[in-house]
């Protein structure tokens, strides 16, 4: 099913764990160090580099972009490292989290509570995913290198709904 960010946010209850989607729209990359900075900025009441409301965050640290290319290799990184930051991120209004791997029970509850969703991309298929990025712009934290925040415009990015807004989770638990 093809779906864009706006429709996805509006119809988030219709998303079901296990569903495959081709996602289009704006996503912001942020991994460990960028999350830490966002939380620090929230703590200090500073203006964030992008509006969290109804936003989609992609846990990703791409390879450097080659001359003439849109972006480097850009697959998902392990989401569970961001679990500790997720309560604040969702409270700020983020609706869609994109990464790979499991989330804590606490994050599953938070996703339910905040009527949001966790989508997964296949890890290690970064060349394939890079083909879906049509535009990339570095918007914050350039000094963090691969951990900087990029605003990406993606078209038909292959994702799977891993945790839906009702808290259903298709990932295997230990």
């Amino acid at each position, binding site marked *: 099913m093809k779906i864009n960010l706006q429709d996805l946010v509006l119809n988030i209850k219709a998303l079901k764990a296990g569903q495959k989607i081709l996602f289009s729209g704006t996503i912001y990359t942020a991994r460990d160090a960028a999350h830490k900075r966002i939380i620090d900025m929230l703590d200090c009441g500073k203006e964030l580099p992008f509006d969290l409301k109804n936003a989609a965050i992609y846990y990703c640290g791409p390879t450097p972009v080659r001359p003439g290319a849109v972006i480097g290799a850009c697959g998902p990184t392990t989401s569970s490292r961001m679990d500790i930051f997720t309560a604040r991120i969702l409270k700020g209004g983020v609706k869609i989290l994109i990464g790979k*791997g499991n989330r804590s029970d606490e994050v599953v509850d938070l996703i339910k509570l905040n009527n949001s969703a966790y989508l997964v991309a296949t890890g290690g*298929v970064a060349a394939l995913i890079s083909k879906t990025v049509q535009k990339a712009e570095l918007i914050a934290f350039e000094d963090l290198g691969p951990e900087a925040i990029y605003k990406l415009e993606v078209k038909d990015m292959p994702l799977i709904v891993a945790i839906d807004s009702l808290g259903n989770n298709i990932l295997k638990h230990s």
Partner: protein
Amino acid sequence: MRKIKSETIINIIENLCAKTNFELPEDILKSLRQSVVLETGIAKDILEEIIENADIAKGEQFPLCQDTGTANFFVKLGQDVYIEDGNIYDAINEGVSLGYVSNYLRKSIVFDPLERKNTQSNTPANIYVDIVPGDKIEITFLPKGGGSENASALKMLVPSDGWKGVEEFVLGVINDKCVDACPPLVVGVGIGGDFASVGLLAKKALLRETVSKNKNDFYAGKEQELLTNINKLNIGPMGMGGKTTALAVFIETKPTHIASLPVAVSIQCHSCRRKMVII
């Protein structure tokens, strides 16, 4: 004594960094293709994506994964080799720095584990050197991603734990952590040695090709048994269920102390990038 210029090694390593990050080894691809036919639904789709990604990366000479890894080198240095204008460590590090910068590979190494400032060159590499007879240098490069590395584990068992203890530990590690480590995995198991050496033993096991069989019949049987039991866990590709949780299990052993039974599990994601050169 055979003289090898430092520059020769640097150039070879620079090229090796690129090729290894762009091309998935044939044995891994073959194992993936064999697994696709066993799966249905999401599991099959994911394996197909992984194979398609490998085709794109090779065709366009583009990184398979954005995590181009910690640069691990396993070196067999012939004792009759003399490296002119330098040494093996500096030459490899120089090659990594050039290779990662010139090929737009991600620099993922920080100077200090707590301060976390990036070295901007993906160095220092982890370089493990064995001195061997002869006048050649054999270098195997294994760039290893952080997600699967974080799932690896080590435990000091005691002799009475035996094989049962080893198996329990390995299956426990896979069950607890492997969803985050980009399965299907390649699993390296080190048994014996001591605390310092067993981890390296497990990591070196990852260099074996998926078609290879342990030379020792007992351990060859245990490799198959572990693989079967891991794949019964129904973790599957990317942790969403399926028959293919691991592509291969390799066990390597070494002598140990009468009081000890060290075990290490080195977890490798499906992007099992490795390449060997002989100079």
